């Protein structure tokens, strides 16, 4: 047996894990799709079709073959970059996903950024001023973020900021006048319009995204600040902080230089989790704000029994989850040499 250097082994191991995870995910989703008591043929041809049309479509979809063979064919297609055709939109699933995914990515990224920028300082301050009004406020904000249904907050947000105040634009990603002006590069409108120097489009896109992103940001802020607070409390109560204080270090140095430094690693995991959650879990927000993203895509596909789209979406989300995990793992190593 040839011997590999440790880094190659490590890489191979990671690749094998990723592949196995995604394959397992596909297998489970595929089987659930096939054993659900719903007829995939009807989803294609609708309720008015004749028996002959039914039979033709049944063969066309390859449903006469054994399940494992169907799965094998599917995996082979996926390996060749073919996710099949969506029966709901009539287009290639890859085309659909290329259209909807950037919308979600843009929304979730901005939401997470807002969550981090607001949530981390809030958590730190709440921990430092434990029991003070700011701590109470942080906890109250977190509580609301946890207990209010997102669709309700979304509708209220729309009503207040769009309907009454008119500060932001309404549902959708872009106003009707700006559609088609910017040729897509990344599919993310803020980035594309900035790259092309179309600042009026940028402003309009921003005006559309800011409300849903703030809503998602609020939810991740609630989570991130709560976690930050508890991590910080743990650190502030430990002996080395007392020692540092006794040594006469400034409070700022103690908090940011010592305590915060030590929770960075945990925070990376928390933020990665929050980000991944927004990427796949913002379905309701997407529906309320008519945001054509992947969450909405997978959900409506599932309801219509459009299994190719569901599987395609699952691969993407699954890959992202694995990707984010690997990424946070790498960051972990970077911040904490012991983990190497």
């Amino acid at each position, binding site marked *: 047996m040839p011997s590999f250097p440790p880094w190659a082994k490590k890489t191979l191991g990671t690749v094998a894990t990723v592949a196995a995870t995604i394959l397992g995910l596909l297998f489970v989703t595929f089987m659930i799709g096939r054993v659900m*008591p*719903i*007829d995939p043929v*009807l989803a294609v*041809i*609708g*309720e*008015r*079709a*004749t*028996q*002959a*049309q*039914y039979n*033709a479509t049944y063969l066309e979809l390859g449903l006469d073959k054994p399940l494992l063979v169907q799965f094998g064919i599917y995996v082979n297609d996926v390996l060749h970059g073919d996710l099949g055709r*969506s*029966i*709901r*939109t*009539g*287009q290639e699933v890859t085309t*659909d996903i290329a*259209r909807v995914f950037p919308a979600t990515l843009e929304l979730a990224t901005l939401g997470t950024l807002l969550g981090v*920028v*607001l949530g981390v*300082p809030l958590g730190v301050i709440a921990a430092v001023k434990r029991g003070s009004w700011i701590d109470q406020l942080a906890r109250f904000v977190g509580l609301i973020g946890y207990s209010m249904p997102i669709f309700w907050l979304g*509708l209220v947000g*729309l*009503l207040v900021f*769009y*309907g009454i105040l*008119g*500060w*932001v*634009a*309404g*549902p*959708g990603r872009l*106003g*009707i*006048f700006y*559609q*088609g002006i910017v040729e897509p590069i990344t599919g993310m409108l803020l980035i594309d319009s900035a790259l092309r120097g179309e600042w*009026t489009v940028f*402003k*309009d896109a*921003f*005006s559309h995204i*800011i409300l849903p992103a*703030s809503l998602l940001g609020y939810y991740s802020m609630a989570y991130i600040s709560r976690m930050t607070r508890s991590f910080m409390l743990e650190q502030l109560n430990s002996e080395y902080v007392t020692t540092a204080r006794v040594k006469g270090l400034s409070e700022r140095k103690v908090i940011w230089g010592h305590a915060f430094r030590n929770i960075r690693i945990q925070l990376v995991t928390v933020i990665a989790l929050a980000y991944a959650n927004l990427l796949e879990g913002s379905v309701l927000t997407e*529906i*309320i*704000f*008519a945001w*054509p993203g992947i969450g*909405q895509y997978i959900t*409506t596909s599932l*309801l*219509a*029994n459009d299994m190719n789209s569901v599987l395609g979406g699952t691969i993407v989300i699954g890959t992202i989850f694995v990707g984010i995990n690997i990424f946070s793992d790498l960051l972990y190593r970077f911040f904490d040499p012991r983990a190497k």
Partner: protein
Amino acid sequence: MKTNFTAAVVAAIVALGTAAPVMAETPPNMLVIANRIDDIKTFDPAESFEFAGADVSRNVYEKLVNFDPLDLDAGYMPQLAESWEISEDGKTITFTMAEGHVFSSGNPVTAKDAEFSLRRAVLLDKTPSFILTQFGFTADNVEETIKATDDKTLVLTLDKPYALSFVLNCLTATIGGIVDMETAMANEADGDMGSEWLRTNTSGSGPYKVVDWKPNESVLMDLNPNYHGEKPAMERVIVQHIQESATQRLQLERGDIDVARNLSPEDVAGLADVEGVKVVDELRGRLMYWSANQKVEMLTDPKVLDALKYAVDYDGMSGSFLNGQYTVHQAFLPLTFLGALEDKPYSFDMDAAKAAMAESGFPDCGPIKISVRDAQERLDIAQSLQNTWGQLGCDVELIVGTGAQTLDRYRAREHDIYLGAWGPDYPDPNTNAGTFALNPDNADEAGNTGYLAWRNAWDPGAMNDETLAAVVENDTDKRREMYLELQREHQKVSPFGVMFQQIEQNGMGASVENFVAGGATTAVSYWVITK
């Protein structure tokens, strides 16, 4: 420093947010509509069979004959065909094409295009193809039965004589859309007659052409510069997919859209006092009904069926949760259809219902399972039935599932009671007569899933022949009478309890005129709209 940075970010966000443009009015030559359009799968008229798809198709493709949106009651009238003649034996229809119609590509519309389009719909054999193949057109015979003898003449040869109105009504359906042969064939791949290309592109001679479609997001239509008719006032039409009624209402109130098409009764009520906005009611073709599977012994008892039909709170439902969106209707032809029956023999009458139940062979009633999909209004109706049928002593259970699940069970004839909706496939009375009152073979193996009578394992008996006779009757008055008679009988004996007909309530800017959603017969028409 970090705190300063945060403050700066917040300030920037607020500044950008407030500085962003907020539209208060759409441009005068542009129509902006909010609608649920996630059912669009394709624009190809040979395949398209969904509501939102039909809306697009009607504005893009012209047909041999078509409806005038401002006078739907007048029935079909000439469009691409200026006249037609029927042979003495009633089996051959000869169309003469009108002059001057041009496709968006610039190609003139000829009889060859009509021949190509109708043949293609038969050959591709997609779901709506039955609308044409019911006249005997098959893949093997289209070369002879659908034929352009020259650029101006198209001859259709039917397998037997049908009522001319029946044939022409069917040609007004989406599948009758005439496609530009040259463009379609230039984009052909693997012998698909342009099917793949026509999924996402349009090539008609109607007032508009689709310039951009993002599934589940928006459809953008511009004027067809070669359109034969008067230039429409709306040069651009944008339909945005907005799922939520409350969101549509907000957009309408703010003036960001001109028309909101999926308003809930609550939001319609909320718009009542809003200035600059109006709500226009329009009767549509969709019926809400329940049906009883004749494989369940108790449900074959005519007295039980009678009792169930009396024990429905028709007015209570239409006056409360269905408020304004459904009207009580009890026959299988929607109002405005030729021969639609207006009689409403059943009203909520618990005494009559109890008496009928007592006379039946099942005086104690038995367990009844209502199969219903998880849509709000249907759940509400099912609960009302559960309540009123419960008063008869029936133990009623709701089996709730997704649309696909309940439909699967229905087609497999595994339900007790199915609570469903049915819309006409084409604007001729035969569409619903042939569904509710015709069942050529009631055997399980027949798999006649297209017939609702079959799905309920019901043999309509003599009504089979009456339905078939009505469709070949050329005297329109006589034909109307035949359908009226058929519905009276059906109302009495069938295991169908038709309850309601849909009213569509569209919210729109006060200045929007001539918005016609299509009534019970067709789809929306944008080209007559002004604002």
